């Protein structure tokens, strides 16, 4: 995070106290105590709000940059609105400024003992570094992994694709997972797209939490399957079978691709 970027957001949002939470790849995430218009009674946390800002990227051609920032901000806001309507855990939207690429949203999550934000990734890392091995695969971790799987299952049952599932894009609010970061989201009923979504997560778990990745991935898929069974009247079982079959294809593609040079 550099001065140039701080100046840019301060120009957009003067007189608003901002505290950096994280610098993601495409956006800066701040927290603030100021609501842009009123305190909304339905928000879980009424003292803190998140401001997500997509700065322009100097490395990109201006035309590409403008189009990416605009479509992603609009896409993310629409996606979050839809998730809210469906009751799939994610932050509620407070306000959106498309032209400046700024989204205000509900603050989810809390601080871990080591001061990091309670994302799924940070929590697993915290366990891995500070706790015993047994603790890394205990019942609570199993429950959370299954809940994450269920959450993704719900998303896919509604033909919505996250597009960037990693353990850092899942926030734990009192050990209830919520999805965040929908810049790459899309809508698709194709088993292929859902399988790629799952594959991206599987690989992220494998590379980020390598020690217990097989166990975690197993639980995630278990949760993913259980939610599809619940929706069996809406064709959940069939959809699940299709996606898992595709997932095997995608895995094979990932590993067997010809690699020359």
């Amino acid at each position, binding site marked *: 995070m550099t001065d140039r970027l701080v100046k840019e957001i301060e120009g957009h949002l003067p007189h608003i106290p901002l505290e950096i939470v994280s610098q993601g790849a495409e956006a800066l995430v701040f927290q603030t105590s100021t609501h842009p218009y009123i305190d909304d009674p339905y928000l879980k946390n009424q003292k803190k709000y998140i401001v997500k800002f997509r700065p322009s990227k100097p*490395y*990109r051609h201006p035309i590409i940059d403008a189009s990416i920032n605009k479509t992603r901000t609009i896409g993310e806001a629409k996606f979050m609105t839809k998730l809210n309507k469906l009751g799939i855990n994610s932050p509620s939207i407070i306000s959106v400024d498309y032209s400046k690429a700024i989204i205000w949203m509900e603050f989810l999550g809390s601080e871990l003992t080591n001061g990091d934000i309670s994302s799924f990734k940070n929590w697993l890392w915290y366990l891995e570094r500070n706790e015993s091995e047994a603790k890394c695969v205990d019942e609570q971790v199993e429950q959370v992994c299954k809940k994450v799987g269920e959450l993704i299952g719900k998303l896919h049952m509604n033909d919505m694709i996250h597009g960037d599932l990693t353990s850092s894009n899942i926030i734990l609010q009192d050990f209830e997972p919520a999805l965040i970061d929908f810049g790459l989201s899309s809508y698709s009923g194709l088993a292929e797209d859902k399988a790629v979504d799952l594959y991206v997560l599987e690989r992220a778990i494998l590379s980020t939490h390598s020690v217990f990745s097989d166990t975690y991935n197993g639980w995630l898929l278990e949760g993913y399957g259980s939610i599809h069974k619940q929706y069996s009247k809406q064709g959940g079982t069939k959809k699940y079978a299709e996606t898992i079959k595709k997932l095997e294809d995608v895995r094979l*593609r990932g590993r067997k691709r010809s690699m020359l040079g």
Partner: protein
Amino acid sequence: MTVDLDQYVKPGKGHYIALGLEGSANKLGVGVIKHNIGPLSQTNRAEVLSNIRDTYVTPPGEGFLPRDTARHHRNWVVRIIKKALIEANIKGTDIDCICFTQGPGMGAPLQSVVIAARTLAQLWNNIPLVGVNHCIGHIEMGREITGADNPVVLYVSGGNTQVIAYSKQRYRIFGETLDIAIGNCLDRFARTLKIPNEPAPGYNIEQMAKKGKHLINLPYTVKGMDMSMSGILGYIDQLANDMFGKQPKKVIDEVSGEPITPEDLCFSLQEILFSMLVEITERALAHVNSNQVLIVGGVGSNERLQEMMKLMIQDRKNGQIYATDERFCIDNGIMIAHAGLLSYRTGQTNLINDTVCTQRFRTDEVFIKWRDD
């Protein structure tokens, strides 16, 4: 590093010398490297004694085929090795180990080079053989040359597009292409436009792109930390065929009203592909909380890519970028010698019946015994 790298030093010797043979694609590379005993550090750097390369170049519009490439390697391998030994001023028997590329790569060229390695090992009193993963060679050489200590690695070449970070004795792949590699995409587009393969198609595209002004609309396909390029190639190939095929069709830039040139196509293709590369690299950086980037592989010598990466890293706290020049970016023998020697120093060598090459060899399959951080 706290790994003991000197358990296997020859009695009475204060250094190691390794010969590296690389031939996984159209470049035949031979390098000789010297490590002094003790851990590698700023003051104890690996010493490049020689680094010779010969590239098999095909006419414009044609790619290199495995059989012809293998023939090129067989033809040149003895001459290149002799040249490398003379330049390094060593005898065959001075060498501690012979390192060769075990994969990934094209089958036939890999095989022709490994035969040379096996023959030499037996000729010179059974020198140990060390099989090296090509990607690991790029990464370790990049780290050694630039001094980058624990970077996120963007590995971009004719056959590979991967974003890699080290964790627990493996180089783990965080993002990669879901279909074709970036260099493959550029090479194939060069073939469509009949851009010469001398010195390299990617280099010629880079030069043409410098003259391009107008950006044409291309798909942008980032999927998490992965990317996909076959759709973009199909799209721009179609456009190029329409514009310069049998019935040429004029395409006009929407903003300026000027006609689109081949230079504009090269410019647009580079801009979109490299934006995607930089984005997935930044995603990996954010995901693993790192701020160092190392670019390796042939495409890594592209100056526009390096410039874009620099602009990205400047906006991150304490961001640092490391890149090497064409001697080490483009496939070479020295990187195989270097990575192989690290392997040798931790006691990992291959018996002769264990030197079979493989076309598919994942970066994360290799156990990195020489690091323990």
